[in-house]
């Protein structure tokens, strides 16, 4: 009973902590969104005064979306126009599964076009890049047409397995993780008394922390060992990708852990493991809550069934929202300079974004920890025996 109470308190504490950070973030976000709208208005007014064809109003939403969504090429620096320095963009492979089999080409074939104007022809099929989504034009069509909501009407999406910016980033994180931990494991083998050295010395306290503070209290002394590889892998996988997202230059800076596909996959894996670990009591608890009168049991059953799915969904949204929010805030702060169109706001922008970055360093570690801890908690609940 005591352990239960402790768990709940711990959870409440974490949620409160999280809420604090989130509330703060929301406040800042709303503040800057307000400013950005204000800026928009100014921009449009100015645009009306001296109208030049080249100067488009600065669109903060497009800029931020461009940075936090996935793309088929990795933009390193510069812009695509011919200004100095010349833009550098790493092109990445596009892999599509179509009715004619696998189609592969480099993303540079699109020549940085994301409006669907450049058509790439492979295996008799025509492909366009529409806002970093590959569409396949229908037979006999040579120009993409849109409906009122700017949806293409004569093109469909093939199964897209491209190595996008996020996938590239993920592979990089894998290489880093493998390097770090295999080196660490080797440092144990080298020493005669099982003492780590170098990077292993740095990683051991974290590994021991996951074991003693996450796995054992939530899963239990007897069964935790089976789950340790999963918990450690997911913790370090999320953490390293979070940290890589914070580093603002190539080959990092992609928003992988703030991508819903990524968090969806990890949450689904946690959910599947929870289901496979589940004992009789877990299902009894959900379908026929023990120790309650029958009407109450009937009332709780649908709630518990929904709760079963809400848990992984919450995992997915929590990580996605926190990391994306962090990126959005930093980008908004930097965009402030361009929205207000003055260099004088730069010191403030930089100061604020530095401040948020420092908080983000903490947040990304906490988010990785929370994902791991809640996964362990769900495994523990699934494994619980009748008492």
């Amino acid at each position, binding site marked *: 009973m005591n352990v239960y109470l402790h768990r709940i308190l711990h959870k409440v504490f974490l949620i409160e902590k999280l809420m604090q950070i989130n509330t703060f973030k929301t406040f800042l976000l709303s503040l800057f969104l307000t400013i950005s709208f204000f800026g928009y208005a100014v921009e449009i007014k100015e645009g009306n005064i001296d109208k030049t064809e080249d100067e488009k109003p600065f669109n903060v939403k497009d800029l931020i979306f461009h940075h*936090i*969504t996935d793309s088929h090429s990795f933009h390193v620096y510069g812009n695509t126009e011919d200004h100095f320095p010349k833009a550098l963009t790493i092109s990445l492979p596009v892999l599509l599964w179509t009715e004619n089999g696998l189609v592969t080409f480099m993303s540079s074939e699109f020549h940085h076009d994301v409006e669907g104007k450049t058509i790439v022809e492979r295996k008799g099929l025509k492909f366009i890049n529409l806002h970093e989504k590959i569409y396949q034009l229908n037979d006999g069509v040579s120009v993409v047409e849109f409906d009122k909501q700017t949806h293409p009407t004569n093109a469909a999406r093939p199964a897209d397995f491209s190595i996008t910016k996020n996938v590239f980033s993920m592979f990089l994180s894998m290489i880093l993780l493998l390097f770090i931990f295999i080196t660490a494991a080797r440092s144990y083998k080298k020493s005669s008394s099982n003492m780590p050295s170098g990077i*292993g010395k740095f990683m051991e306290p974290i*590994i021991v922390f996951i074991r003693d503070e996450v796995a054992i209290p939530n899963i239990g002394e007897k069964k935790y060992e089976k789950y340790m590889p999963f918990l450690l892998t997911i913790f370090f996988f999320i953490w390293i990708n979070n940290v890589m997202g914070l580093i603002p230059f190539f080959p990092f800076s992609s928003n992988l852990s703030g991508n*819903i596909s990524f968090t969806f996959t990890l949450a689904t894996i946690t959910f599947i493991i929870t289901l496979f670990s589940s004992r009789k009591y877990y299902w009894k608890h959900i379908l026929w809550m023990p120790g309650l009168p029958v009407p109450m049991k009937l009332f709780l059953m649908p709630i518990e069934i929904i709760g079963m799915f809400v848990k992984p969904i919450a995992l997915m949204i929590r990580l996605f929202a926190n990391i994306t929010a962090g990126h959005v805030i930093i980008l908004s702060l930097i965009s402030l300079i361009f929205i207000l169109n003055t260099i004088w706001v730069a010191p403030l922008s930089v100061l604020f974004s530095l401040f948020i970055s420092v908080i983000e360093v903490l947040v990304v570690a906490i988010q990785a920890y929370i994902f791991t801890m809640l996964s362990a908690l769900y495994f523990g609940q699934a494994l619980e025996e009748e008492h």
Partner: protein
Amino acid sequence: MDNPLVSPELGLIFWTTLSFAILLFILKKFAWKPILGAITEREEGIKDALASAEKAKLEMENLTADNERILKEARAEREALLKEAREIKNKMISDAKDEAQIQAGKMIEQAKTAIESEKKAAMAELKNQVAELSVDIAEKVVRAELSNKDRQLKLVEDILEEATLN
């Protein structure tokens, strides 16, 4: 699902699943198992070392306690021996004293008895001598008295008078 932020992409889901599976497999085999094994082994080693140190300490304590006990016992024994010796000495002295006293008493008693009996014998002798002497004197006195008739009469008269007075 127009917002690209909240629409999952099949490709990324596929690559994430694959990457995570590969990562989990390789790290489990080449990193987590050796690292966790080494940590556990080391922790066990430390635990064992601590336990044996504790045991050694306990043994040491026992040994010291034993030594202390033996020393105490020896001291007590010596004390007891000394005490006994002293007692024996005292007893011997007092015994000797008693014996001497008894002996002396006996001798005095014997001497007393001998003196008493000598005294008695002497007294008896003296009494006999006195009696003989008295008889001799009485004979001589009676003879002298009875040689004169008047004196005889007088004596009778005196005796009669005494008898009347009675």
